[in-house]
């Protein structure tokens, strides 16, 4: 009895364990040392950032174009693009402001929209597909979008701007799907990234999903928006993702206005000195 008590008192606390959305321990996503070849024209599965869950969270701008003041990371703004960038009061990047001064629409739980979903919060991402479409389910905000692969062309006249735009995809080889997206929101509620880089309704985004082998995927996103940028530029280049266990349940994640309001009131505003002054 005494020895049992002694053991209990000296026992080390259990090491933290990562759990999925069902509270079950997360299994190793990659099943073997050498992955099998990529299945033909198939992106199905649950993908996560290969370098850890935080690798796809890009608060300071896209992975390959962070807002860090370096010339090589500064997008080629048009005069209008620069004007719009300066009008955006972001919480991150080289021109970050305090919370009380920001005008980031996402801070009020507006949708991230596309391509900010790729460029700010690339977390667990599920792909479902059939012979006509590929559907992407994003963990952040539980958003989804459809990429049509039935051979249709992008609309020449946009019926209505949409947060996640109009997307078509083409297999350029048996392991690479190239997706073109137009018709995204071009108003002040849509930002390209977390640092306030602007977008217009004339933007065209190319995503290149290359399944390197069964367990690995690379994502490249190129921005082409002549109203805001003088030439196309690559925001993320071969961003690595790996296949998650097929029984992994993606954890629910949403921006909830009532919780956000409490957060602002009790934490964010205090931190920004907007109360009690």
């Amino acid at each position: 009895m005494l020895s049992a008590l002694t053991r209990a008192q000296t026992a080390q606390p259990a090491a933290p364990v990562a759990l999925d959305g069902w509270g079950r321990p997360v299994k190793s996503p990659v099943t073997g040392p050498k992955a099998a070849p990529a299945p033909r024209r198939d992106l199905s599965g649950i993908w996560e950032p290969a370098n850890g869950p935080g690798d796809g969270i890009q608060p300071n701008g896209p992975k390959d174009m962070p807002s860090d003041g370096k010339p090589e990371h500064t997008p080629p703004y048009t005069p209008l693009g620069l004007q719009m960038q300066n009008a955006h009061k972001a919480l991150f990047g080289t021109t970050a402001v305090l919370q009380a001064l920001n005008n980031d629409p996402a801070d009020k739980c507006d949708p991230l929209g596309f391509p900010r979903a790729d460029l700010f919060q690339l977390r667990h991402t599920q792909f479902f597909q059939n012979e006509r479409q590929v559907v992407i389910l994003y963990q952040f905000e539980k958003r989804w979008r459809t990429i049509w692969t039935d051979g249709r062309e992008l609309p020449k006249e946009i019926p209505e701007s949409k947060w996640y735009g109009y997307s078509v995809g083409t297999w350029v080889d048996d392991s690479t799907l190239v997706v073109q997206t137009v018709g995204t929101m071009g108003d002040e509620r849509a930002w390209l990234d977390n640092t306030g880089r602007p977008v217009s309704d004339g933007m065209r985004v190319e995503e290149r999903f290359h399944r390197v082998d069964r367990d690995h995927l690379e994502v490249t996103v190129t921005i082409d928006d002549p109203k805001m940028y003088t030439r196309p530029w690559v925001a993320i280049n071969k961003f690595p993702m790996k296949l998650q266990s097929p029984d992994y349940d993606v954890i629910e994640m949403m921006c909830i206005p009532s919780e956000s309001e409490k957060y602002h009131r009790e934490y964010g505003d205090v931190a920004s000195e907007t109360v009690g002054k």
Partner: protein
Amino acid sequence: MKVKVLALFALAVGVSMVSVPLFAHHGNSAFDTGKRLTLKGTVTEWFWANPHCFLKFDVKDDSGNVVNWVTETTNGPDMIERGWSKQTFKAGDEVTVTIEPVKNGKPVGRVIQVVLPNGQTLGMAYVKR
């Protein structure tokens, strides 16, 4: 404000647990970057929410006055990946919390690590799997 500060800078213990970049929903501008405070207190609320969770706890200063600290973590899904959960704290728990405080002197900051009543340390590093 004079509080029971155990250490002003990062403890040797737990340094490896803060090796990932910290991300605050409200940016980094408000924080006294690199500064550390370690506080001992009693949990009053563990708000498990989006966009970010926060931990509130009472700290008694040397004169016996109680200050309620409000300290944030990231969001629930991120904290689960770090081994935290909605059940990590309950009101009344005695905890030791290391934070990065804000610059304005308010009892506010972001959590670097906590030591739970059972001695377990939880930090901001993702759990290896």
